[in-house]
Structure formats: C-alpha cells, structure tokens
C-alpha cells in the first residue's frame, strides 16, 4: 500500500485536473495558472539542484529556459504544422501527439548542452564568478535570439498553438495538462533519484567542503558539470512546456526578471529542499496572479518579498528539510523514491 500511495494520488490528481478541463468546469485562465504552476515547479526544483544542493550561485536560469523554449518550438512547428517560416510540415501532423515529448526532450538536450558550454569555463574559477558568468550567458542567449531574424528576432516566434490543434486532431483531450504533469513528475523523479544516490550525495559534499570531497575521491569537476547539465536540461524542458502553453515565445520573456523569479522560488522554498521548491512554486505562481492588478508595482512587491524572506526566515519555508522530515507521521503513508 505504501508503495502505491504516491503514484495513485498523482494519477487521481492528473485525472481530476484533466476531467475538470475536459468538462470545462475550470476555464482557460485557471487552466493556464495550473499549467504555470507545473512549469514553475520544474523551474524551481531544477535551479535548486545547483543553487541549493551544490551551493553554487547560478543567476541565469532563464537563459536555459529560453534555449529549450525556442528549440522545441522551432522543432514542433517545423515538424507538425504548416508555417511561413518552414513551409509544409515535415511529418504528418497526426504524429504530433507522439512526437511532442520527443521534441520537448530535444529542447532539454539543447539546453543541457548550452549548460555544458557555460559550465566548462565557469567551474574553473570559484565562488561568485558563476553568478557573473550565468548572468552574462543569459544576456548572450537572449541577444543571439533577438539577432536571428529567421526565427522572429525581437518580435518573437509563434505557431505553437497549431501544434496543440494538431494533437487535438488525434484525441480531444487537454493535452498540455497531461504533458506538463508528466514532465513535472518526471523531473522530480530525476532530481530525487539523483540526489538520493551515492553519486548525488557527492553534490552535497561539494557544497559543504569541496576540498575534502576532491581528496575523498569525488571527481568534483565532472560532478559539477553533470549537475549543471541536469539542471539546465530540465530548465529547457520547462521552457518547451512554457512555449507551448502560451503559444508564442518572445526573447523578452526570458530576461533576468525570469531568472530572478526562479531564484525567488528557490529561496522562498528553502535551499536544497525539493518539497520546499514545489510548495514555493505553487505559492509564487498564485501570488503573481493575485498581484497582477498591481501591474508594474508587482515588481516592487515581489523583490520586497525576497528581502522580507531573507530578513525573517533566511532558510526559506522548508529550510533544507523535506515534508517527511517535518511531519514524520506522513512517512507511514507513502514511500517515494
């Protein structure tokens, strides 16, 4: 029973959400917010891997989200739809539903490779340099996109809604809820499995004492690269999901503000805590929507929130603990690996 409680709960949650959307009990607006929650969970948990578990300071997460968003959007539009940029679909549009996860993973891989390119030079230096290099990388990625006119440049790129329509030709279900949910669960499983293995514990060791880790046979350079690549790869998947949820991408939506949002979620949730990052992503997404009427003042309120967290609860909502550590009784009911 213990082993099946979490999968069962997740399936019930997924079916409920899809059912609510299917019967139009929740409108498109609420659906979008729920999708954003899922996407933000991927964003925050993946950034947490580098900033929380490894103790490095990456500030350019949105850059990798942008790479994933653009690569998967370009691929899916070129493969499954008729567009001005690419002409006729390369594959029959009926395949969209099956091809979409592969396209997302391709976006993730592209982001992971970009992550490798950023990490290779920056992990040779120490401490604050990664923060500076990742900010620079974020800007480089955005300016590169702006300057490629074929993919829309500063105007952005659209046509992903047609990919969704193509999927709906296959079966008329709320596809995005399904994909966001599946990939969210997948990325949590990836992070969880990584961090609970002896290999992943090397990441914690690096944060606490890198010299000791290296001396005790941990290949610190390689493990840092691998961790950074996993983190940026998952960010790329989040980007692909975001692009297909919104239906168009614009380089402006992946600037430092987006990176800051990811940072706020990580610090709000607690460094190194997966459940903390999940809770923070949900809370933060809701907060963003609630504060929407404030318009530009929102960007006064949210940094203020960050300052308040740092002042009164610097360890975040969960500290570095997981749900099971705070409520030990919960462990009786589930077993989640």
């Amino acid at each position, binding site marked *: 029973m213990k082993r099946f409680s979490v999968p069962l709960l997740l399936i019930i949650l997924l079916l409920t959400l899809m059912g609510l959307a299917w019967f139009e009990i929740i409108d498109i607006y609420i659906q979008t917010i729920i999708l954003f929650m899922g996407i933000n969970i991927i964003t925050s948990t993946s950034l947490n891997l580098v900033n929380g578990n490894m103790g490095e300071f990456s500030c350019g997460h949105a850059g990798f989200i942008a790479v994933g968003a653009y690569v998967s959007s370009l691929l899916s539009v070129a493969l499954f739809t008729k567009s001005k940029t690419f002409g006729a679909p390369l594959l029959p549009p009926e395949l969209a539903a099956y091809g979409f996860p592969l396209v997302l993973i391709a976006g993730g891989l592209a982001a992971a490779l970009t992550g490798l390119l950023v990490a290779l030079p920056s992990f040779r230096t120490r401490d604050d340099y990664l923060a500076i290099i990742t900010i620079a990388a974020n800007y480089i990625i955005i300016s590169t996109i702006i300057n490629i006119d074929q993919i829309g440049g500063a105007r952005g790129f659209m046509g992903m809604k047609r990919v969704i329509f193509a999927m709906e030709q296959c079966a008329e279900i709320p596809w995005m809820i399904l994909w966001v949910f599946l990939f969210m669960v997948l990325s949590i499983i990836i992070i969880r499995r990584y961090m609970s293995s*002896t*290999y*992943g514990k090397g990441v*914690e*060791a690096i944060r*606490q004492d890198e010299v000791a880790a290296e001396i005790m*046979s*941990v290949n610190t350079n390689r493990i840092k690269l691998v961790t950074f690549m996993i983190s940026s790869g998952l960010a790329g998947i989040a980007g692909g999901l975001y692009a297909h949820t919104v239906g168009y991408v614009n380089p402006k939506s992946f600037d430092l503000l987006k990176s800051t949002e990811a940072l706020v979620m990580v610090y709000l949730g607690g460094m190194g805590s997966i459940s903390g990052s999940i809770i923070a992503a949900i809370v933060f997404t809701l907060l963003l929507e609630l504060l929407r009427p404030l318009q530009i003042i929102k960007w006064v309120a949210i940094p203020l929130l960050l300052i308040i967290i740092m002042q009164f609860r610097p360890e975040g909502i969960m500290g570095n603990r997981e749900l099971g550590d705070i409520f030990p009784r919960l462990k009786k009911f589930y077993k989640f690996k």
Partner: protein
Amino acid sequence: MTLLEIKDLTQLFSGLCAVSELNLNIEERELVGLIGPNGAGKTTVFNLASGFYQPTYGAILFQGRNLAGLKPHQVSALGIARTFQNIRLWKEMSVLDNILVAQHFNLGYGLGGLFFRTPRYLKRESEIRHKAHELLEIFKIDNVAEEKPGNLPYGMQRKVEIVRALSSGPRLLLLDEPAAGLQSADVTELIALIQWVFDQFDLSIWMIEHQMKVVMSLCSRIAVIDFGKLIASGTPTEIQQNPAVIKAYLGDDQL
C-alpha cells in the same frame, strides 16, 4: 617493498621554498612519523602526496607509479587516503553519508543506471551501504550512523574522519595531526585506535604529529624536516638523541 617513494621533491610557492629536495621512502606495512617545527613544510608534503599540489621539481611514486599530473580524486582512487589537521567532515551530512561519499572512486554504475534504477545500480548501492555499515560496526560507531558529525564530541569526529579515510580501502593512510585538539585521555584512546587500525588493516600509515607521546609510542621510524629539508630519519630513540633535531626544536646553544 617500497610503497611510496619521494625523490628530490621540491615545492616552491612563488619563490618561497616550502619543500626542498626531499628524499624519503615509505615501505609496505610501516608506521612512519613526520615531525618538524611549525612551518617546516609537513602539511605541504602531505598535500603533495595526496595530489593537492603538483610538485615544482622531483617526483612522488606510489607503488612505482608517478603521481605527477593526477588530480586528488585519482590519487585517492589509487589508494592514498588522508585526514586533515582541522577536521574536514561534511558537517551537514550524516556520518553514514560521509562514509558513503568516500566510495566515489568505485561506484560501478553510470548515470543511466542511476536514473533507470537498473539491477546493477541497486546491487552496487546496497553493497556500498553494506560496506559502510560494516565499517561503522567494526569501529563501534554504528550507533551514531544517522547523527550529523557536527553534533558529535571532538574525539568522536576524529574517529569518524579516520573511518571515512579507511572506507576507500587505502594502501597508505596519511594522518595530519590526528591528536590536535584532543584531551590527554582522548590521546591515549587515539594511540590505541591507530595501533589497532595498523594491526587490522593491510596498510601503511604516515602521520604528522606534534605530540611526542603519540609519535614515540607508535612509529617505528620517524622523519624530521625543518625548512623543507630532511634533517634526520631513524628510530624514535635515534631521533631523540640526534643533535640536528634538538637544534631544530630547541635552537643552538652557541648563540
């Protein structure tokens, strides 16, 4: 047989000569001491032997293999483990996890195995865990396996650090001032522990120590360095009577 061979080892730090033309051998199954006044370059020698620094000149051969160009984690995988003068356990991880991470040199699975939880991965993880538990039991510290090292008394932390170093199955164990900061009762216990480790495990131990009680009662041979140079080497009694050593520690009465 010679386990570690140090040949003409020289280390310059932007002009400062920390170690100069050091020649020293450590044999198999030998317990050797390395002593010398403060700043003599003892820890530098250890840092060189564990791959943390690359020697300016000279070579270090471990089981006949030159360590030049190897990273510390590669040196550690070859079979040299060490402890630190100021204990460097990972303080926010449990004692068990500390032991686990030290087995990184021989995980025996890749990332694919990790994410898909292949039978090989599960088997290796349980073997690694089993080995760590076994080690903790041998040293009778399995009761603190889930504790964080930061919450343990200082003497216990020293012990955990030695166990962590041993968990990689080293052929040579470098102990950097194991008795530093210990009370005298704990020092007696530490001497017994080191002797026990030396008897039980098939390895050589090389240690830096300031407390003569520890060095004299444990080591079969002692090397003395001063200003990065080897000034004497021999049995504890020989060292105690060596005029060069007395001069290095107490100064020259001709002044």
